[in-house]
Every structure is written in structure tokens, then in C-alpha cells.
């Protein structure tokens, strides 16, 4: 597995994923926001990449990586990267906003 390439794809989708999740946080509670970050936001990141950088898919196709593999790796990497963020966020919320 070409981890560097999958990581590159995640880095390119990252701004879209987190922008969407942060915007959602303004309208929903924190846990729903985290749920969105790990689920719907992946799809939004993938769609944004498909719309704005569609030509760069050829970079991955030439490596023998399909769109489906890219989407799966995006979900996995986002879960790994987002998990510490989610844990810190929940601890922070418990410590400072437990009575809110």
C-alpha cells in the first residue's frame, strides 16, 4: 500500500472536511458535530476534491489506486487523525462545560 499517496490525498481533502465540520458545529451540538466529522464530512471532502481538483485523480490512477480505495483510506485516516482531536474535545467539554 502506498501510504504516502493516501496521506497526500487526505491532506488535500483535509481543509474541506474540517471546514465543513466546523461550520456544522455552529448549528449542532458537539457530539453530533464529531459524528459529522467522522462520517458525512468525509463525503464532503471527497466531493470537494472531485469538483475542484478532479484532474489530480490521474495522479492516483497512475499509481493503480482507484477512487473507492481513496475514499476508504480517507475515512480510515480521518478516523485516526480525528480521534485524538475528539478525545481532547470531549475531555475539554467535561472539564469546563460539564455544568452547562
Amino acid at each position, binding site marked *: 500500500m502506498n501510504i504516502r499517496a493516501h496521506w497526500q490525498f487526505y491532506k488535500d481533502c483535509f481543509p474541506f472536511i474540517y471546514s465543513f465540520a466546523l461550520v456544522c458545529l455552529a448549528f449542532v451540538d458537539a457530539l453530533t458535530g464529531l459524528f459529522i466529522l467522522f462520517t458525512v464530512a468525509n463525503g464532503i471532502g471527497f466531493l470537494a476534491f472531485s469538483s475542484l481538483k478532479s*484532474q489530480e485523480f*490521474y495522479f492516483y490512477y*497512475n499509481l*493503480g489506486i482507484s477512487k473507492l480505495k481513496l475514499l476508504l483510506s480517507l475515512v480510515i485516516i480521518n478516523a485516526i487523525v480525528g480521534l485524538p482531536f475528539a478525545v481532547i474535545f470531549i475531555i475539554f467539554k467535561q472539564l469546563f462545560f460539564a455544568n452547562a
Partner: protein
Amino acid sequence: MQTLSIKNVHKSFGKKTVLNNVTLSVSKGEILALYGRNGCGKSTLLKILFGTLKANNIELLVNGTATTPKASRLNKSIAYIPQHPFLPSSQKVRDIIPMYHQNQELQDAVFYDPYIASFTARKVSELSLGQRRYFEVVLLANSSHPFLLIDEPFSMIEPLHKERLKGFLNSIKRTKGIIITDHYYNDVLEVSTQNIILKDGLINTITTKEDLLKYDYLKSV
């Protein structure tokens, strides 16, 4: 001999037939040049071969074995260099090389290419069109794909880059089967070993520059 063959490729967009039972083949050691006027289906054919566009019908043989374009893309039989930039623009050249080549020897072949060595520290977005084209071709030519499809490599690049690119294509001819399309027919003719033209969805063989007149590709030679 490694050979890529396609038979009876048919592609229509609505009522318009772009490719009408197109048949061609390219072997390792050959550069097949594909000419044709804008909109005649050159890029469409390359995308079909690479499996990013579906044909109404296609029979694909790689080294005599029937396969599908998507399968040959996924098992890295065919590489495709589109006419528009496809490398991650935010990345530096030196960071892209290891993504394509895990093998140190192959990395070095790209890294220490006399021309590429001069801009490895730059981001792809900072490269000139000619530098980017050259880098794309060298990067993929050093990969394991036995067949390479190149869409308009000479378009809009300066003469010095063209010469460099032609020299490189001639040097890799022995190790790859290449299909190339471009409107810069003089440059393509210098590197090609076979020439064909797409007109009205059909393939015609070109042997001389005058044949390009015959198929209404040129008004004068």
C-alpha cells in the same frame, strides 16, 4: 514482445459517433502517433484505453490476454499523462518522486535527471509548463507501466523543452510502448514510429506528411 491491442472500439455521445470500430496496436519499442482535428476523439480514445471513460464497445488485449481498461490501469499496465496538470500542485518535486518510486534506483533516475535536478526543491505549482511536462513524462516513463499514453506533450511549451522531451522520448522508446497525440505534428513525426489519423471516427494510416493533407488535417505542408 509486449503488445497493447484494441479492437472494435465504439463510442458515441448521444447521436454523435466519435469512434467507429477503431482498431490499433502498439508494441514495446514503438511510438504510435495519433493525429486528428479538435473534437475528433483523440483524447476520448486515450481516456477509454485508460479506463476513465466508458466505451460502448471495446476489446482490449495486453500481451495477448483479454482484459478491461480499468483492470489494466489498476494493475499498472497502462499509464496516462493527460494534457492538463495532474500532479498535486502544493507538493515539491522531490516529495512526489518517492510517492511514485519506492525503489531507490528508480528514484535516483528521476531525481538525478540532469534537468529535473535543477528544480527538485520547487513546488509543482511553481514550475513552468515545459518543466512540468518534462517532469511528468520522466516520472511516469521510469515507472513499471509497459505502456504509456501521452496527451499533447508538446503543446504550448518552448522549443528547448520540446527538444529535451523529444530526446527523452527517443531514449525510452526501447522500453515502452507509447501512444502520443499532439497537434505539433512536426515534433511528433520526429519521434514516432507509426502514424495514424482519426477522421470521422475511423483510423487511417499516415506514411508521409502529405497524407495529413489528404485527410484534411492540414491545408498545406
